[in-house]
């Protein structure tokens, strides 16, 4: 979707503001939101979580802090799933007689859950369509659902730098339509191809793009 989250190349969003000695969490509640998002029974796949945050209305997305957005998305997922009601959130306690669940993640398993090696690579029968060195164009597409093809790259020509094998496709996975693994490539775009003659002739931007985002150029 062409949301404000897809902000690469925009102007006017203010100066970068580094903070000396920044804490991991600025407020205790931020850590709780982060932890609840990870431990929540609504935690589906990573793509669905990203898409949920993209659905936050644009003005709110720009105004809210990072963990305010996470909190809003977590609350929305819990309400949508029916696991929690608005009345319960308002009251801060379970409705009388509501069923008692079992936590998906217990303390003893946290370290293993956070550090366990895993992979988004899947075996597929199809051969990759592109090889390193191939010129490819990012397709001019404007899907209304989740995608990881930023607007600033669409329609532009780059060169395949590296193949990563077939990875889970966010455009499908975010919507519960299955992993639909597709070949993934690092594609390098010259800065001038993306931004015009004012950009440095030496500079480039590389993106990781799935095969359905690309066509031969």
């Amino acid at each position: 979707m062409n949301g404000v989250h897809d902000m690469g190349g925009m102007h006017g969003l203010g100066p970068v503001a580094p903070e000396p000695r920044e804490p991991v969490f600025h407020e205790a509640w931020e850590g709780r939101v982060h932890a609840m998002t990870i431990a929540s029974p609504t935690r589906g796949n990573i793509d669905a979580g990203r898409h949920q945050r993209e659905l936050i209305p644009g003005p709110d997305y720009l105004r809210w802090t990072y963990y305010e957005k996470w909190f809003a998305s977590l609350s929305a997922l819990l309400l949508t799933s029916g696991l929690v009601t608005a009345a319960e959130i308002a009251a801060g306690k379970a409705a009388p007689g509501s069923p008692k669940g079992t936590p998906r993640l217990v303390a003893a398993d946290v370290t293993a859950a956070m550090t366990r090696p895993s992979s988004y690579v899947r075996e597929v029968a199809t051969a990759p369509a592109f090889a390193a060195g191939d010129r490819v164009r990012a397709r001019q597409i404007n899907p209304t659902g989740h995608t990881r093809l930023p607007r600033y790259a669409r329609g532009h020509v780059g060169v395949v730098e590296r193949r990563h094998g077939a990875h889970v496709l966010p455009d499908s996975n975010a919507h519960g339509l299955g992993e639909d693994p597709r070949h993934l490539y690092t594609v390098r775009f010259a800065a001038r191809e993306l931004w015009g003659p004012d950009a440095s002739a030496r500079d480039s931007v590389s993106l990781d793009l799935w095969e359905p985002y690309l066509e031969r150029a």
Partner: protein
Amino acid sequence: MAHDHHDHDHGHDHGHDHGQDPPSDMALRVKALESVLVDKGLVDPAALDAIVDHFETKVGPRNGARVVAKAWTDPAYLARLREDATAAIAELDFTGRQGEHMIAVENGPDVHNLVVCTLCSCYPWPVLGLPPVWYKSPPYRSRAVIDPRGVLAEFGTELPPDVEVRVWDSTAEVRYLVIPQRPAGTDGLGEDELAAMVTRDGMIGTTLL
């Protein structure tokens, strides 16, 4: 008081399509949500404590600094890092979420690398921990790709025009770790001393060492 406040928010929630409302008193609202989830047996509060502890004490830039220091001092390790960064980083026990597919990108005299996630906040958690606020914020996400040299200048990093700037937009589950140039005059130093010189921003690419 708190109940009145939440009742108001609750009424307000119904007016929106996505049920995603402007948070007001965040600490109270988060506490209320956690209480409900714990009450219903949906989360283990001790697991939440452990997750917070993981991010506050177990992961962070010191992990990435060890990778960099080893790459500087051990040519065989550098070769493995170039061949398969995920495996080379796993040798140091830095594995897991948001580090599933690692690539190390090396700065040199003629090339400088800068990492961003324009679409959200993708960042290599096992080696750098959670990202700083500026990395997740609109100014950096919007400008790192179109004006990397301007962004670098705001970090005090002025690069000569003949140095190539390579920006990496983390659009998939591949995560990038910048290997900064080893500072001059550090020939006699060991891995621990070198690791102490490596900064988080150096491994994102916004600063030099």
